[in-house]
């Protein structure tokens, strides 16, 4: 690239950056891009990333010096071209990908130091949705959603109460006994969302949840995510769907070549 990229991230203070310390010390995080409009009041920092880098091999950086902060209750879109590093970042946030450098706090967990044996307990506090749904093909819709609770050791009674409620929320009431192959792509993704949300996590990370869907179905999925956000859960949505991002009128973080190039409070898809 001919033009030097503008440095768009303002780095957080380096001294004490645990999430606890941050709530007392920091004012509103300064972001560049469009001038912030009336921001609805948000809660505590839920994701704090400092100088995150991920190197595959020697000089191949999938993520390069990314710092950001996402607060409770936000709905954040993470956009960028293919290969920009969106999945790398979301995978880091869910503890699936190790970081090469930097520090990362999610929901009070220092993910950069997360021990393997702690990962299950960390996972239980977040919800994850992928482009390919990752449903269990031999299980019914009900069982797929229940599986998230079963694995957590939830009692039968809770499962019988929470799963139908969640299926109603995502608009799948009456389809409990279907198998994934009897569902449309949009419906499958709703099952996945129900599974990711059935335990009411504080954070829901969705990596291109609409990637396999037609535009119409795609927006329905986004509406489900918005509903979940209204219920208080922070949503991080990685996508490269311009229409969706522009229609959302929510915060947009733009990655390019592994760098955070833009962070707008009410953003648009600009690339």
């Amino acid at each position, binding site marked *: 690239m001919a033009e030097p990229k503008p440095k768009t991230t303002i780095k957080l203070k380096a001294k004490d950056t645990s999430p606890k310390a941050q709530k007392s010390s920091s004012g509103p995080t300064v972001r560049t891009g469009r001038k912030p409009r009336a921001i609805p009041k948000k809660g505590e920092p839920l994701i704090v990333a400092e100088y995150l880098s991920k190197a595959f091999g020697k000089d191949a950086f999938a993520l390069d010096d990314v710092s950001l902060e996402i607060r409770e209750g936000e709905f954040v879109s993470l956009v960028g071209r293919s290969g920009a590093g969106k999945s790398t970042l979301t995978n880091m946030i869910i503890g699936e990908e190790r970081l090469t450098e930097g520090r990362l706090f999610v929901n009070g967990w220092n993910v950069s130091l997360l021990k393997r*044996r702690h*990962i*299950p*307990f*960390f*996972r*239980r506090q977040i919800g*994850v949705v992928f482009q390919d749904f*990752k*449903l*269990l*093909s031999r299980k019914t819709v009900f069982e797929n959603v229940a*599986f*998230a609770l*079963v*694995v*957590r*050791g939830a*009692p039968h009674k809770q499962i019988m109460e929470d799963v139908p409620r969640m299926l109603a929320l995502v608009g799948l009431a009456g389809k409990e006994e279907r198998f994934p192959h009897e569902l449309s792509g949009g419906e499958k993704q709703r099952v996945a969302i129900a*599974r*990711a949300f059935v335990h009411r996590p504080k954070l829901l990370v969705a990596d291109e949840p609409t990637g396999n869907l037609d535009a119409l179905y795609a927006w329905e999925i986004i509406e489900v995510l918005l509903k979940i956000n209204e219920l208080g859960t922070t949503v991080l949505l990685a996508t490269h769907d311009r229409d969706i991002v522009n229609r959302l009128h929510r915060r947009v973080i733009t990655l390019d070549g592994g760098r955070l190039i833009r962070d707008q409070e009410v953003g648009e898809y600009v690339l």
Partner: protein
Amino acid sequence: MLTFFRIVKFAFATVWRNVWLSFATTLVMFLALFMVTVLILLNVLATGALEVVQDKVDLSVYFVSDATTEEVNVVRTQLQSRSDVNTITYISKEQALKDFEERHSDNPLIQSALDELENPLQPSLIVKANTPDQYSAISEFLTSEQFSGVIEDVNLDDNRQIVEKLTSTTGILSQLAVWVSLLFTIIAVLITFNTIRLAIYTQKDEISVMKLVGATRTLIRMPLVLAAAFYAVVAAALSTALLFPVVNYIGPRANAFLGEVTVDIESYFFDNFWLIFLAQFTFAVVLAVVSSSIAMRRYLKK
């Protein structure tokens, strides 16, 4: 507790989903256990028979009828100084007669014949060696030139043949037991390993989703170990059950083969029933746990 039930449920799902593989694995484990146990039982049988028979082997040294006690004692002392001789029993002319009379007390013909004769019997020594293979050396020593005047006959008991047969049988059996056990154990480990590997493969999606939604290592791994342990328990039960008819079959036949010597393999089996079952069970479970652990270590890395 809830988690435990779910682990058991997942374990049965693993068994059921790969039902043919489960069947094959159980079968191979069963074969391994059964072969090993039968060989061990045969070994017990042969060793037991050997002990009984060994005790019956001896060497009788018959002196000429007019040999004096001194002459007998000379031979006796020389025998005693040999390291291969274990015990020596002296049976005098009179003792021999008494024994003979007793043995034939119900036969008046012999009784009356004996009354008329002067004691026709010879003094003798009964020699026991430390091990059966030492008898020929002792026998050679006694038939040498120096004793030809006093010793009339050296008689080796017939049991020696059976002993030799048994000694070689137990030797072969224990060797066979070691190799066959080893072979079958290796086969069983490989098969179980492969079954668990395939179970991991068929449940790949499940396992990745389990991890995704926060399943602990225990919840992912325990069902696999438990499935393998399940094969082990069934195999041990089958093997123990099949031992009943086998022992019933072997027992009488073995005794027929051994002739007058009897070793009660049936009562050995029943006396040690729980021990045998427990040993098989433990062996199979250890085998299952080890092989499934290797499979998991290999294929469930992350």
